[in-house]
């Protein structure tokens, strides 16, 4: 029998409170481990047990247990420089995307639309255009930040699929409701501004977390009670059902000019089926772009260059959050508009 000792190992790839629990649980499955205590702030785990191998071999064995989730455990502390090096790639890539987004806004896509009649085909086309124009800043930015964060915490394709199902179903039923009631469901001006600021703040926090550089952002996450995080972490294994669906339905109310004009049209139809079909045709039009963002993040989250991807996504999300925040304040009349796309 080997004597029981405590060894310190270093972890890389750890981002959140949920990660600590996943790692503690995984290491606890080793027969010789009595206790594992992960420190998120120090990227360390203190393991107590009757070790039979050298620290290096033990670290290798532990890594095998957690590497599917993107963590590496080592006996020696890894160079931190590599993390910052990712920015040499992430910053230019992010800027190319931001510049492309700005130019796309200048391309005058809206001139494709003429007349005031909306067939289901037109609604689909409007959805396609909406998903690459101003709505991309709000809806696309939110989808990118949520799905990249979810993918990093071990969420699966089912989480993303449920989000899109929730969005399509929500647009169908709420669109039908708008048509039936002849009353639009969009929010008032103040609520709209409050929601825009909230969305911008959520995106800002998620974006900063994706950058994975500020340890104070990690401490923020400690504010989530351990029990709650444990629930999320364990839930990730079986996947959550309700949360992604609710968020998907909620996108109906996001401030997006196209969604609101489509609602006005759905309202004028005066029938459940026409309103519902118009809105779902619109939502289907936005699906290719949004699906690309969410399933793309999920796919890349398991690639070796995921560090670059998460940082790129983080920069883009932060930029969009700042644009949305400035726009919301301009709409409130607090500041003069900074942009005109």
């Amino acid at each position, binding site marked *: 029998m080997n004597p029981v000792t405590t060894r310190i190992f270093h972890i890389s790839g750890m981002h959140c409170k949920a990660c600590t629990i996943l790692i503690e649980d995984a290491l606890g499955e080793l027969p010789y481990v009595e206790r594992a205590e992960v420190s998120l702030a120090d990227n360390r785990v203190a393991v107590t047990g009757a070790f039979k191998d050298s620290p290096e071999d033990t670290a290798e064995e532990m890594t095998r247990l957690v590497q599917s989730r993107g963590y590496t455990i080592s006996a020696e502390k890894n160079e931190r420089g590599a993390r910052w090096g990712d920015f040499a790639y992430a910053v230019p890539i992010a800027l190319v995307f*931001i510049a492309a987004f700005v130019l796309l806004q200048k391309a005058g896509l809206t001139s494709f639309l003429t007349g005031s009649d909306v067939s289901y085909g037109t609604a689909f086309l409007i959805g396609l255009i909406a998903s690459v124009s101003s709505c991309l800043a709000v809806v696309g930015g939110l989808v990118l930040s949520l799905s990249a964060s979810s993918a990093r915490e071990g969420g699966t394709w089912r989480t993303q699929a449920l989000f899109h199902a929730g969005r399509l179903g929500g647009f169908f039923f709420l669109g039908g409701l708008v048509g039936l009631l002849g009353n639009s469901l969009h929010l008032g001006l103040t609520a709209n501004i409050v929601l825009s600021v909230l969305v911008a703040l959520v995106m800002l926090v998620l974006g900063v977390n994706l950058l994975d550089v500020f340890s104070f952002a990690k401490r923020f996450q400690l504010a989530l009670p351990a029990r709650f995080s444990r629930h999320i972490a364990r839930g990730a294994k079986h996947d959550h059902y309700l949360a992604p669906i609710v968020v998907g339905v909620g996108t109906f109310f996001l401030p997006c000019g196209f969604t609101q004009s489509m609602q006005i049209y759905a309202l004028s139809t005066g029938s459940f089926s026409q309103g519902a079909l118009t809105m779902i045709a619109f939502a289907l039009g936005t699906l290719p772009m949004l699906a690309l963002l969410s399933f793309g993040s999920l796919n890349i989250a398991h690639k070796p260059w995921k560090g670059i991807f998460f940082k790129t996504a983080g920069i883009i999300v932060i930029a969009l959050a700042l644009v949305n925040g400035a726009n919301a304040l301009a709409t409130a009349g607090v500041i003069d508009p900074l942009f005109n796309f």
Partner: protein
Amino acid sequence: MRMDTKLIISLAVSAVLIGWAFWVVSPRSEPAPALAQIVDGRQIIDISAKGGYSPRIVEAKAGVPTVLRVRTNGTFDCSASLVIPALSYRAFLKPAGVEEIAISAEEAQGTLQGLCSMGMYNFQIIFR
């Protein structure tokens, strides 16, 4: 060290790109402001809304009862969702049609800012 050089170069390139993107979207290099017309003692301002507002800047006489006419034609984008904070005005314009917004003589002062509800597009009416 090599990583630092790379980082500095990429940050410099980024700064240039950001500056350029802001230069493209910033509200500058305006065309000459359009002038409002006065018909039968009423000042009339026409603005068309589609993928933005045009003209972006209108000069008008201060202290005159004014009608702002916003024309839409196949407008489904954000510019259909019009907000004028100073007037506490907010409306969703029909995809095609003309929306008339009355501006009283007292309100026709200074600069009136109009924008779409997401803030992507804007226009100004300058009362002199």
